[in-house]
């Protein structure tokens, strides 16, 4: 696949093409109000940092009704749960940052793999075309390169777009992306070298990435049993901010809610920071204190997910948890402590 370019004066037409037959979502609003919203093709904004929350709720909403029943015995199928089906619709999402797209690709392997397919996730992602926008000026909170990603990362995207002066460069990454770009009338261009140059510059702005490779090779139980977790967790409030803002956190809780007319089975975001997350029906709790809960979150991101997903870390370096944690628990500091544990075991 070659690259393509959309000239500045053709941008609106390009976005019109994206919006043709689909809803076009792009980041709108500033700061904590920046979120993916339906956007008219002439109102796309390329000057944003990133959305306040990750885009995971597009595919995995915080609350999602999975199935429902009615209890009117005079009608068929009373008291029987009926699937509400997937809520998919044709979507073009423009402006996903590479860290967040990588996050979706990690969650994708949880919701679709050789053992399970989650139809609610699949129904949405199959009809979505994801166009990323590379970061030419990463934020101070960003550390994608340290986590094995890049401001020009391609994982999870159908097309990677990037600013090429006032024009927009496009690199299709999947057949779905190629089809979209060709249909848009964008002109082919050889931009491979340009991408390399821009990427090197963006990576450089993040400084020399810390080396966390020690964690990958370390013995799991040595990391698990290291005494640092007590101090690491000591100031944690056990709120759910880090998990709710994380682009890869995907844990959920299934709840039935009933009324006089029937009931709904819904899936809600859950958080491993909560005491309630692991408490058993007996009252026993295998993660009784915040030390175990904090350890779980970081071990999951930096050890368990890499073990299950061919070395890909469960943290993409988007920096949201670092910026949003009320007590500034910084996953980079935790990763360094884990690296030190690994070094002392070696």
């Amino acid at each position, binding site marked *: 696949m070659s690259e393509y370019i959309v000239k500045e004066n053709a941008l609106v037409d390009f976005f019109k093409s994206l919006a043709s037959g689909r809803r076009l979502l792009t980041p709108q609003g*500033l*700061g*904590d109000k920046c979120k993916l919203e339906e956007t008219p093709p002439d109102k796309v904004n390329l000057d944003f*940092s990133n959305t*306040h929350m990750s885009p995971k709720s597009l595919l995995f909403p*915080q*609350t999602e009704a999975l199935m429902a029943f009615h209890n009117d015995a005079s009608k068929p199928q009373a008291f029987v749960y009926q699937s509400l089906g997937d809520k998919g619709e044709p979507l073009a999402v423009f402006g996903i940052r590479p860290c967040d797209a990588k996050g979706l690709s990690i969650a994708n392997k949880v919701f679709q793999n050789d053992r399970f397919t989650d139809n609610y996730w699949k129904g949405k992602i199959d009809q979505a075309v994801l166009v990323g926008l590379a970061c030419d*000026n990463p*934020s*101070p*909170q960003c550390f994608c390169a340290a986590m094995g990603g890049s401001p020009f990362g391609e994982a999870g995207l159908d097309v990677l777009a990037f600013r090429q002066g006032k024009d927009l460069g496009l690199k299709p990454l999947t057949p779905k992306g190629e089809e979209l770009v060709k249909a848009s009338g964008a002109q082919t261009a050889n931009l491979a070298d340009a991408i390399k140059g821009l990427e090197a510059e963006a990576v450089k702005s993040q400084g020399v990435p810390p080396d966390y490779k020690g964690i990958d090779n370390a013995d799991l139980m040595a990391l698990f049993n290291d005494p640092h977790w007590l*101090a690491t967790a*000591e*100031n944690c*409030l*056990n*709120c*759910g*901010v880090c998990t*709710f*803002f994380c682009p890869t956190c995907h844990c959920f*809780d299934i*709840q039935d*809610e009933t009324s006089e007319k029937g009931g709904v089975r*819904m899936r*809600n975001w*859950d*958080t491993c920071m*909560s*005491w*309630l997350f692991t408490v058993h029906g007996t009252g026993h709790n295998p993660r009784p204190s915040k030390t175990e809960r904090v350890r779980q979150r970081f071990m999951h991101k930096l050890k368990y997910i890499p073990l299950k997903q061919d070395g890909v870390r469960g943290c993409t370096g988007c920096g949201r948890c*670092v*910026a*949003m944690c*009320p*007590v*500034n*628990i*910084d996953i*980079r*500091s935790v990763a360094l402590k884990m690296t030190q544990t690994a070094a002392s075991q070696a």
Partner: protein
Amino acid sequence: MPALTDITNKIRESAKKLLASGQAEVVIGYRQGTIPMTTSPFFARTADECDLLVWSNFARINLANYLPGRAGKVAMVAKGCDARSAIGQVTENQILKDNLYIIGVPCTGMIDTNLVVAKEARPIREVVETADDSITVKGQGFSTDIKKDEVLRRNCKTCVNRTPKLANELVGQEVNGAAADDFADIKALLAKTPAERMGYFKDLIKDCLRCYACRNACPLCYCPVCFVDETRPQWLGKSTDPMDTMTFHLLRGLHCAGRCTSCGACETACPVNIKVREFNRVMELTVQNNWNYEPGLSWDQKPPLTMFQTDDAADFIK
């Protein structure tokens, strides 16, 4: 010497003395955060660790949150509001007075980072806090001075008790707070119709994620199991249903009635910038009006909602 540096030095000095003398096994304070405009609650147990303690314009989380149920002797760094929370916890039997040592910091107010970002939208990579009445934020190709008065948290603007007068020691000169909090905003809100008030509060919490950062950052919310986490029976749904979300906020407000010291930790912790204190402020005013009570101002006052008085204004209780 800048006031913040002076206070930092005094905190470190005091912390070392307390640990050395055995008056405290741990000193809970703040260390510098890993990104600009943050601090992180920090537990110092050695002299070396004491040297990591700092004072800052961003020491916004209330450290009394770490006290309930703690065994052994503990010292905490406290602003006026935080000290009042700790004293409240003593009156509520959450920690023994004899086990608690308060290193009181006369506080000139903490900074609301959202207000800073509103004044300087470019990515901030560094903040300089050497001046007493302003900060300097720096980023790629800019350096902007911002007056502290213009970016104070709203609870700090109306704070009456900036100096923790009941602290075991003060590290810094006493400062005067506002003469009084007139609650003008809350009185205006209460003058509206019930429907308007409900509309106001519905709009206030429309972005709530139910992450419970407000609850978990709150020194009053020390229940072993919060009512929202109860499962037998389950009082509240787990979804983002607006009624469930409202129930959480209303009940938390009521549970905190007469106990809130307006430390603002809830609003600092909220990741979607909800003015959580609006609920608490209504209850604060209600309790003041009914029982002329403000929490955390003496070691032996009794919280009004644990009290019975024969001259109570309410008829139903007599």
